[in-house]
């Protein structure tokens, strides 16, 4: 169970808060999709979950343990239990695919092994299996930066698989991919969610995709929670609530004759 409790994050004193009194509890086994406009605070929220970003106030708890107040060693242990993938994949470009995957075992390997890059055969084998599982077993010895976007995201997912976390965080994992590849990656994530019983939280920019994969959708707007419900509860007016522009000046132009065409487009009805 992951709890965000009254989270507030300010990057600068003068800036408006990226998150404001944000509370949310995610239960084990859920597949949560966070929706929100650019700058709504989705990335900030997801990075608070594993302590990559420290909130200004409030607390994050994972299975009752505080991520926010954790000491260094505890924090590393908590992070090892949470996998993360990113929009820009963020692989170690100069190293080969297999090594990128084995990074997922670093927390559990003796330090000297990772420092010297001498990994035990069973870890190499685990990494190879994970690569086969995500469908790119043949690329194990390729350099990571030579791969296509979809392949790179598969490498990142394989890294999560060998990490064997209970929670998967994804910061717009398909936003840099073409629609077909994006769909394949989402299917893979959904399959892993079901098969490994991995609680999953993703940021997505596509309402249609969100409704298809999520068991629960959370809408963020200007750092606040504005929607929390099942995919079928996310009707057009709720979508509009999440995405409508702040300044009323744009409203007459966008909302034509009381119909919200923006949400129309977003929903792909």
């Amino acid at each position, binding site marked *: 169970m992951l709890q965000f409790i009254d989270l507030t994050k300010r990057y600068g004193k003068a800036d408006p808060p990226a998150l404001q009194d944000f509370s949310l509890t995610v239960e084990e086994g859920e597949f949560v999709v966070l929706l929100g406009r650019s700058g709504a605070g989705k990335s900030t929220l997801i990075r608070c979950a594993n302590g990559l970003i420290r909130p200004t106030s409030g607390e994050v708890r994972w299975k009752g343990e505080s991520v926010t107040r954790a000491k260094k060693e505890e924090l590393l242990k908590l*992070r090892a239990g949470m*996998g993360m993938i990113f929009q820009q994949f963020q692989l*170690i470009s100069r190293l080969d695919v297999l090594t990128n995957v084995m990074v997922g075992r670093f927390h559990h390997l003796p330090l000297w092994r990772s420092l010297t890059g001498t990994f035990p055969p069973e870890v190499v084998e685990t990494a190879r299996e994970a690569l086969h599982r995500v469908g790119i077993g043949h690329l194990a010895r390729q350099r990571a930066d030579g791969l296509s976007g979809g392949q790179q995201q598969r490498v990142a997912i394989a890294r999560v698989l060998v990490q064997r976390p209970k929670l998967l965080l994804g910061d717009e994992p398909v936003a840099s991919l073409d629609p077909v590849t994006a769909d394949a990656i989402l299917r893979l994530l959904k399959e892993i969610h079901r098969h490994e019983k991995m609680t999953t939280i993703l940021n997505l920019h596509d309402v249609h995709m969100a409704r298809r994969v999520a068991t629960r959708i959370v809408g963020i707007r200007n750092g606040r929670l504005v929607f929390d419900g099942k995919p079928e509860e996310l009707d057009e007016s709720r979508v509009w609530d999440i995405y409508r522009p702040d300044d009323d000046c744009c409203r007459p132009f966008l909302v034509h004759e009381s119909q919200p065409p923006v949400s129309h487009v977003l929903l792909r009805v």
Partner: protein
Amino acid sequence: MGPLRKKAVPASVLILVAVVFSAWDAELHFGDVTDIGNSFDFLSGMWPLDFSMADHTLEETLITVEMAFLGTVAGLAVALPLSFLAARNTSPGPVVCNGVRSFLTLLRSIPELVLALIFVPTFGLEPLTVIVAIFLHNVAVLGKLLAELVEAADPGPREAVASTGARDVLVALYGIVPQIFPNILSHYFYRLEVGVRSSLLFGAIGAGGIGDVLFLHFKTFEYAAMAVDILAIMVLIWLLDILGAFFRAKVI
């Protein structure tokens, strides 16, 4: 050109005044240019090249390379971890960051030759003195240069490695070092070349190496032998350049 031309006149005047003043104040004897023949005599004394002492020249050239290599390699080994402490994005805290930065700046402000002189009483007029001076100087220079590389590195891979619960040292080693490796190599080879040049100079104080031999030949008027020393140095610098380019091409 419009706005430039406006400032061009006062700027040229200023530069001209500075040139004239400097030349006058330094009491340059331009009249001595009539003695240029002496330099030609000196140069013609180099011909024909005297290879009778070439064995010795090669041995001492090797010593020069070894001194520069040991000093810069040790410098790199110490500078790399220090650079992570000095870089703002990887430093454990502002105290460590500023402390290491100040230390590196202080060390860099001491000329290499002074460093060598400081260690002459300890190690004598020996290669070790030169190695220690090159080592300390390169800790300071490479520490600063590598810290800049670390700060400019893409935070993406770092974040990904950190997200797995890996220790900070692994986040640095896997999340940053591979990215900046080709640049580390470039900097290193440049510093090696500079190290060779400075160990030549240290030869002048008699601490061994090809510089030592060169000045000895100069002082004993053996210009033809000295020419061979110069040739060895030129070939050496040229080889280092090729070697650096070769390794860089390998890792990119």
